[in-house]
């Protein structure tokens, strides 16, 4: 019972930190601070995933969210301004939409099965098969890996293709231009010299 209370306390403090960081991100007009705060947001999310026993997700969140994307955001920031333009004033319509959607989501959680319940609908369908299969047919201790790579191999192939597409997209859009610019400058310089 004591550990349960500790878990609740940890969850509440992490959620509070998450909310404080989110408010900080919304209020800050300095893009450098915003990038750093979103890195912190990812790190706190990663800690939350650990408390939910989703270590794989926490791993990804810490590496991608807090690590690489913070650096990418800083890199993107150097291409633009350092601070955001002044905020537009509060529009009442969007606020009402946000509040309504939020209320609907909270109302939706009332019907959800209790946290960690094995009776939940999601655990009834195909999950028992995966768990038994990972133990008997694949013999991989980490079920996440056996589901991702074996049972859901097509999905993961698709995900890899998405990453591949994102990579070559960025590369062809902005990755190669600089060298061509330099080549153009060189060409102009040499032609200018000749003239």
């Amino acid at each position, binding site marked *: 019972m004591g550990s349960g209370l500790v878990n609740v306390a940890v969850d509440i403090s992490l959620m509070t930190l998450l909310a404080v960081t989110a408010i900080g991100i919304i209020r800050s007009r300095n893009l*450098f601070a915003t990038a750093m705060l979103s890195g912190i947001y990812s790190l706190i999310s990663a800690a939350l995933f650990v408390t939910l026993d989703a270590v794989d997700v926490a791993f*990804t969140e810490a*590496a991608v969210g807090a690590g*690489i994307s913070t*650096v990418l955001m800083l890199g993107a920031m150097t291409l633009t301004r350092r601070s955001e333009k002044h905020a537009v004033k509060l529009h009442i319509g969007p606020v009402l939409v946000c509040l309504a959607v939020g209320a609907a989501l909270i109302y939706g959680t009332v019907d959800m099965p209790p946290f960690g319940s094995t009776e939940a609908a999601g655990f009834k369908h195909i999950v028992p098969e995966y768990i038994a299969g990972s133990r008997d047919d694949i013999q*991989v*201790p980490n079920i996440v890996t056996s589901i991702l790579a074996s049972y859901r191999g097509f999905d993961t*192939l698709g995900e890899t293709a998405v990453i591949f597409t*994102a990579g070559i997209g960025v590369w062809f859009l*902005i990755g190669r231009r600089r060298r061509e610019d330099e080549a153009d400058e060189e060409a102009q310089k040499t032609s200018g010299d000749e003239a």
Partner: protein
Amino acid sequence: MRHHLILRVVSKLLIPFILLYALYVQFHGDFGPGGGFQAGVIFAAAFVLYALIYGVETARKAFPARWLAILVPLGVLIYGGTGIASLLLGGTYLDYDVLAATPTGGQHLGILVVEFGVGVTVTAVMIAIFFAYAGRTDDIQDDDW
């Protein structure tokens, strides 16, 4: 960051361990948490750290764009090729059972190869995207911050 001696020394010490840890996450993924996606990002993060400390041009020399052009598609090809291999061996697409003598051995082999393909593509794409962004500006000076 030429004069940040502590940063340079510490990162130089840490980068081999980050790379090693990425390999551990990659090849230990069926026993512990991890797998190709996480390992690829950690591997790329080591290069990003290197680029942040020693400059993008030095990092480009350590990881030439030519390699990226090969590695980005190579990972997807490894993944897709595993499926083709299982087709040729008489199974269905991405059915690893036929890859080795026993179905369990085949599953283990298939998962290992497929995760390796994912890791290769994720590493190369992350580095490519970082270079694409970082290459657009001249090196960031300390007083820019």
